[in-house]
């Protein structure tokens, strides 16, 4: 078997570790870190799909010639990274408000609805 599947293995490892942190941990901050790991894995997968063998960057300034990689997946990854930053900021704001209201960060103790 060839060794060309290593980037896909890195993507699978990132998503599996992020999923483990979201499902099986009880602290809210660790769940937020798990969501960020899953987003990083998906961004890496988007860039991996746009590579050709023996190619250079799709920029013409002092380029050494030859075939170039695909520019469209790189543009989509830029947008995805910025959206990940925006979602992370709002998630952390909600975690701060939950801590001020309940006094604890344990997921199993927050589920009771009180007035």
């Amino acid at each position, binding site marked *: 078997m060839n060794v060309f599947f290593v980037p896909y293995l890195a993507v699978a490892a990132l998503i599996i570790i992020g999923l483990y942190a979201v499902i099986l941990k009880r602290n809210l901050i660790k769940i937020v870190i798990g969501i960020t790991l899953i987003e990083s894995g998906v961004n890496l997968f988007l860039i991996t799909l746009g590579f050709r063998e023996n190619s250079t960057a799709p920029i*013409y300034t002092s380029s050494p010639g030859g075939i170039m990689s695909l520019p469209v997946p790189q543009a989509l990854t830029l947008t995805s990274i910025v959206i990940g930053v925006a979602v992370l900021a709002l998630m952390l704001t909600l975690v*701060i408000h939950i801590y001020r209201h309940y006094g604890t960060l344990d997921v199993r103790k927050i589920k009771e609805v009180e007035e």
Partner: protein
Amino acid sequence: MSGMSKIVKTMSAVVFPFIMIFGLYVIAHGHLTPGGGFQGGAVVASACVMILVAYGSVWTMKKIKEKHLSIFESLGAIGFISLAFFGLVFGSAFFYNFMANTQGFLGIFGDTVIPASTAADINTAGLLPLMNFALGLKVIAGLFAIVLVMAYATNKSKGGDKK
């Protein structure tokens, strides 16, 4: 949060202009080298957050209030949308690049590029550098405002929370 020691304050004040110039270089050369609005805006916002960590959030909030930052961000967003509408007025479609290859609409950013050439001319690519400036301003003000508001509101020595 309170500030750090005197060595950290002095060194971060010395390094801050160099990082800001590098970030503005990445924004301005977005159509020639890798970079653009979002990448350069993140670099300059990191420099501003370094100043916030070194000097403390109470001192920084006295110098810069967040309503000034929100005016900068709205200016960047309005500039981006109005550049897109100018394409509708002067050209034929929304987002149309009406300044490229015309030898200068108002005398700026209009040179043509010979195909498959590897030289870098900064006077090219019509509407792209102006959009880069508007987006860079928006990203700098937005990211710095998020971190400043979060650092000021969770200050432990004020007791400013209600249940």
